[in-house]
């Protein structure tokens, strides 16, 4: 009969009208600024750089300025300049690490390609700023966040990363110990930074394992100019 479909529709809307007052499955609105939904652990929005010592956020970055993420970044929103000492020797640390989050697409590829677990995805989504240009261009200081923060936002993933780093470090220590016997000179030089590093697994320690082995002797010079940024 003409009209039966209309009446059926009216019944459904009436049910929803009533249901929105007592049925939480129907009334799903979250009133945002006051109420917030819990973000899932995997949620990702914009990268940040992990540092290990909150006392020295820029000195203990895991990033070695290898520029892999800069090359792989699809929208090319990362800009890295490696820090060099007076003699122009690379210090395996970013002097500049800029990330333009007005360009960044949060694709996580930088995280995937990073061999040092130095860059991770943040969960920050309230990024509105009054400054159109500078406000969305994050520098090394803005990006640097502690490992504890990383544990807080991505607990499972961070635990996995820590475990892998610890394992790698242990392996490396073992390899070094084996190496130390035939070459005591090299061992003496590397020992100082190892003890000077923080109690936790150092960011620098896995570095000699992967990229060019030639850089291994340079590490002793590392702690000396570790605190030049006066603006920090």
């Amino acid at each position: 009969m003409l009209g039966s479909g209309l009446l059926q529709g009216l019944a459904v809307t009436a049910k929803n009208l009533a249901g929105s007052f007592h049925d939480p499955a129907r009334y799903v609105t979250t009133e945002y600024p006051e109420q917030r939904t819990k973000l899932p652990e995997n949620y990702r929005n914009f990268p940040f750089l992990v540092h290990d010592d909150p006392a020295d956020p820029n000195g203990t970055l895991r990033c070695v300025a290898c520029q892999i993420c800069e090359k792989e970044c699809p929208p090319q929103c990362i800009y890295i300049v490696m820090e060099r000492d007076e003699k122009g020797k690379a210090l395996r640390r970013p002097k500049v690490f800029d990330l333009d989050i007005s360009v960044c697409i949060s694709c996580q590829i930088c995280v995937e390609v990073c061999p040092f677990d130095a860059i991770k995805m943040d969960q920050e989504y309230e990024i509105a700023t009054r400054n159109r240009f500078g406000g969305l261009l994050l520098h090394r200081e803005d990006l640097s966040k502690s490992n504890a923060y990383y544990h807080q936002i991505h607990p499972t993933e961070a635990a996995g990363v820590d475990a892998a780093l610890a394992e790698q470090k242990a392996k490396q220590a073992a390899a070094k110990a084996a190496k130390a016997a035939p070459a005591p000179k090299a061992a003496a030089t590397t020992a100082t930074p190892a003890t000077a590093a923080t109690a936790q697994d150092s960011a620098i320690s896995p570095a000699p394992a992967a990229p060019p082995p030639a850089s291994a002797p340079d590490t002793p010079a590392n702690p000396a100019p570790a605190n030049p940024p006066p603006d920090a």
Partner: protein
Amino acid sequence: MSAHPANALPLLERLPVALRDACTSWLPESWRWLANSLLSIVAIFVVFATLFALLTLAERKILGRVQNRPGPNRAPLPFLGIRTYGLAQPLADGIKMLTKEDIVPRGADRVLHFLAPVALLAFSILTFAVIPYGRALLPVELDAAVLYFFAAGAATELAIFMAGWASRNKYSLLAAMRALAQLISYELPLLLSIVPVVLVAGSLSTSEIVEQQGTWLFGVFPQWHVFTPWGFAGFLIFFVAALAESNRSPFDLPEAESELIAGHLTEYSGFKYALFFMAEYFGMCALSGMGVTLFLGGWQAPIPALAFIPSYGWFAAKLLALLFVFMWIRATFPRLRIDQLTRLAWKFLVPLALVNLFTAAFWVLSSGWAGPLAFARWLVAGTLVLGPFLVLGRRLSAGLGPRTYRYA
């Protein structure tokens, strides 16, 4: 509001009139009439403007709740910062509307562009004059009140045409054409649907029509027109035509936002837009009020035991219920197309209304039937209503229907 010979009425019933008389009693006799009229106009305007403000909120709230969201609930009270479940929203909307820039397109017909909202609102307000809001509350007692109502209402579409044409916008022009076609189509079923009421009541006066619905069958069932076969059919036809006449969904073709942006409102902003909005709600209120008056017993109480509640209370309750149905329908239905709209009017509503006229005539002629004949009376009238509905409905929806699908 006409001075009824109603000093015998209870105080609550007389209250508005008594208040008005108290306000004007100090004036000389010759001036009192004018003052009383002005006071009535002001009262009607204030009441319906407030109702309009609340209705805009209610509509959004109801739409929101139907759609499982809260609707507007944030606007805080000015200077206090307290949220009141969105009650301050109309205030915020009003301030926004009043302070917005009034934009007139360069190619527009400036005079008509300005006149359209004014004329629309003026005609909408005119219709309020003949609706009996309560036992003693009828602003103007007219012999041909029903005719007056529709004469005043007929001019509203003209204003919509003016708006659409004056905007010099193609969407607006299409909306203007649609508004005209819609008016020409729906004026007829609207008028035809109320002719049976006039026929049965033997009067074009609204107060008399309401008075006549004030009896109870067996002392329980109200004898409203809607509770007769012809009245029921007439009410449905009236309601559908009223939806079309007030340009409400599913007949909101002139401003069809998914097709014509905003139709005749495309080039309006600020205060003029607010006037249109107000006129739309006023028209809706007026038509609902007329529907209540003609079919739902006006200000009569549904059962005698509840007659202690003042008559204007009942009127308000019925009016709000009808307005709720307007909103409920808006929340549910898709929009018709213009050719379907006219076809619905000419091929369905007009024939049904004509048949309904015969049904009403039969009802009047058979008013003396009693006993088993009363049953036969209901049967015949019911058949006269239902039969054409089924036949015409089948013809209207020929070729349409649920389908079955095959699977590869």
